[in-house]
């Protein structure tokens, strides 16, 4: 292979160490040994990481800039069962569901590479269903905050106005990502089921969808930590 890639005769001795690595990396082949779609998804997710990081940094900034006390998250995000408020119970269930969905997604990728179309599609639908459940519970959480607690983007009775602003903006933006992911997974699952990828036998498309889904899941862990635990 290496002799194929070398044009000038007499350069047979390949450099070692860092130079060898740089030479290999910049060689006349695909820089990353992955399909185009996967490379593109990684780059997109890098860009998206910046969006979420900047949202969260902005949230920290306004949380510090406001002079009004921040509402206590373990009280705001508590649900009452039989009279006793349980802090963070809803969000714990939501987080559990989302992380479980990452597990089913990983299984789907595995079955995809094995060529088991029915199981792949089924697991992707399960993943999408978990995602839809997550969005549904998020809608319930928003309803509760808006209707019962009187939290609005521009203010709330418990404290700093920025609490509602950042909460709705960031969880909304994340919920939008989850919703897009649900549609994305459902479309790919349908195409898998229909046998669209049989001709090429290439099920990397499932893994690419999986990358997006795991990313959305990972972002949630950060939102969870910064919003509900701080």
């Amino acid at each position: 292979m290496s002799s194929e890639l070398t044009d000038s005769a007499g350069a047979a001795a390949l450099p070692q160490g860092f130079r060898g690595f740089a030479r290999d990396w910049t060689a006349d082949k695909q820089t990353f040994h992955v399909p185009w779609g996967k490379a593109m998804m990684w780059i997109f997710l890098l860009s998206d990481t910046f969006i979420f990081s900047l949202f969260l940094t902005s949230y920290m900034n306004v949380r510090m800039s406001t002079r009004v006390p921040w509402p206590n998250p373990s009280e705001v995000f508590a649900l009452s069962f039989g009279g006793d408020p349980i802090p963070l119970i809803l969000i714990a269930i939501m987080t559990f569901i989302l992380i479980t969905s990452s597990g089913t997604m990983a299984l789907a990728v595995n079955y995809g590479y094995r060529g088991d179309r029915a199981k792949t599609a089924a697991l992707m639908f399960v993943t999408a269903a978990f995602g839809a459940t997550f969005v549904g519970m998020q809608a319930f959480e928003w309803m509760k905050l808006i209707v019962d607690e009187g939290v609005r983007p521009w203010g709330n009775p418990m404290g700093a106005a920025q609490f509602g602003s950042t909460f709705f903006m960031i969880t909304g933006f994340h919920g939008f990502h989850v919703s897009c992911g649900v549609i994305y997974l459902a479309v790919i699952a349908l195409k898998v089921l229909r046998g669209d990828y049989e001709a090429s036998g290439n099920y990397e498309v499932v893994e690419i969808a999986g990358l997006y889904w795991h990313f959305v899941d990972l972002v949630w862990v950060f939102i969870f930590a910064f919003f509900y635990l701080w």
Partner: protein
Amino acid sequence: MAYAAIADRDQHLHDPDTFITKYIWSQDHKVIAIQYAITAIFVGVVALVLSLLFRLQLGFPDTFNLVDPNQYYQYVTMHGMIMVIYLLTALFLGGFGNYLIPLMCGARDMVFPYMNMLSFWVYLLSVIVLLASFFVPGGPTGAGWTLYPPQAISEGTPGIGGGIVLMLVSLAIFIVAFTMGGLNYVTTVLQARTRGMTLMRMPLAVWGIFVATILGLLAFPALLVAAVMMTLDRVVGTSFFMPEMLSLGRELDYGGGSPILFQHLFWFFGHPEVYIVALPAFGIVSDVLSVHARKNIFGYRMMVWAIVLIGALSFVVWAHHMYVSGMNPYFGFFFATTTLIIAVPTALKVYNWILTLWRGDIHLRVPMLFAIGFIFTFIHGGLTGLFLGNVTVDLPLSDTYFVVGHFHMVMGVSPVLVVFAAIYHWFPKITGRMFNETLGKAHFWLTLLGTYSIYLPMHYLGILGVPRRYYAYGDTEFIPASAQTLNSGITVAALFVAAAQTLFFINVIWSLWKGPKADPNPWRATTLEWMTPDTPPKHGNWGAELPEVHRWPYDYSVPGESEDYIPQTEPPHKGVIAGRDHGVHH
């Protein structure tokens, strides 16, 4: 595995058969590039006309009553935003990026042509939304192109009705468009180069566009986040950027937000944005200089690393735009240091351009004139940047005409000269016809001398302390009356330069119809885009077989060769010293 099989994998080119799929809903990167370029240049002309309107006001404050103070601010704002984002970013990346990347890398198209097509149409939508703000009640926003809150959305600033909202929405749409295109450009460069095209054999134009696109993908998120939050502040009534404040004697409902946060977000985007425009210009000008000086680019490897280093450093200098914002003074020390460090790779590039010209066989054709003009304007703009990068020097100069002169020189005139160099350079390949040399030369001299007479006096005005963003100056103690004379001269020069641009449009349109048929490789250049089987290149670019690359792109005037250039596709031959090849360490 056979190499061509990899390069051609996944590539399902749609076959355009009707006029609409060929020229309108086209997925061909060349057509998309031209669509991008035409839209960007159109909107750029709009911004140019706006600048003439407010220049007439500044030069002759009591003579022409074309604009009132509100319109003055609106036109200044729209001029800045359009030129930086909708013209330069779109033209360099959407235009030249689209056209050159697949051709120079030896690909048939971008990796995802459908998304590439969507990118253009979404960009067009963002332009329409932006221009729509001229027609809403209250007109476009007059907040200044930096859109600083709280004034951008407070009473008293023109266009706080629909104008500012449309501006922010348009920016968000632009970012979506850019992301779709940018993912394509980066992935194409990384994954779809042809056989033999190592990263260190790519022309510097591709390197510049490639690194600039990565900057864009990482910097535009900051603008998106800022735009979303300011839209919410304006429309929903949140207080991300709005502190407790009195406006026109009335206490606003806002409170607790941080205006400085916006400045950080804006400049975390805004500074890389300077290099999103500059790096493609650096790359393109390197190629043009090398071709027309018949010499290899001096220090290719260092030129690549300088591009990469400038790109990386551009993310840690943003707060040098904020020395007067009241941030912690220690930040000023840090950001002044990083700013001055970035001058090192930049100066390296300038030296290398000059050393490329040194003892070259220089052909002073139109693209070369513009490229050399760029070196002059860029050195001037760059040196004034060193003044402004130092905190103590910046403080008195901040918000004066010195700043206006500096950034117009470095990121207005310089990239635009490269745009012209690039258009004249690749015009024969894009259209298959030659442009008129005489008209082109006239266009160059009028533009270069004209822009100098606009922006050099501005530095002097700035040192006098004349502040920017004033509708009229009236009588002050510190501004001598002669400053107004200079101001009038600047306006005359601006009108003159704008008029000179008609030469360019006449030349392009005339040459499209009547220009002599172009040779496939009129400049006798080495890079792949000149090796296409057809001129202009047909859909799919390369006919049946992809080209194979055997050498770096700068084999000019190699000793012992019969021709003074060796195309990249030329295999190494025995008995002759092969051109220097940075893929191989001897």
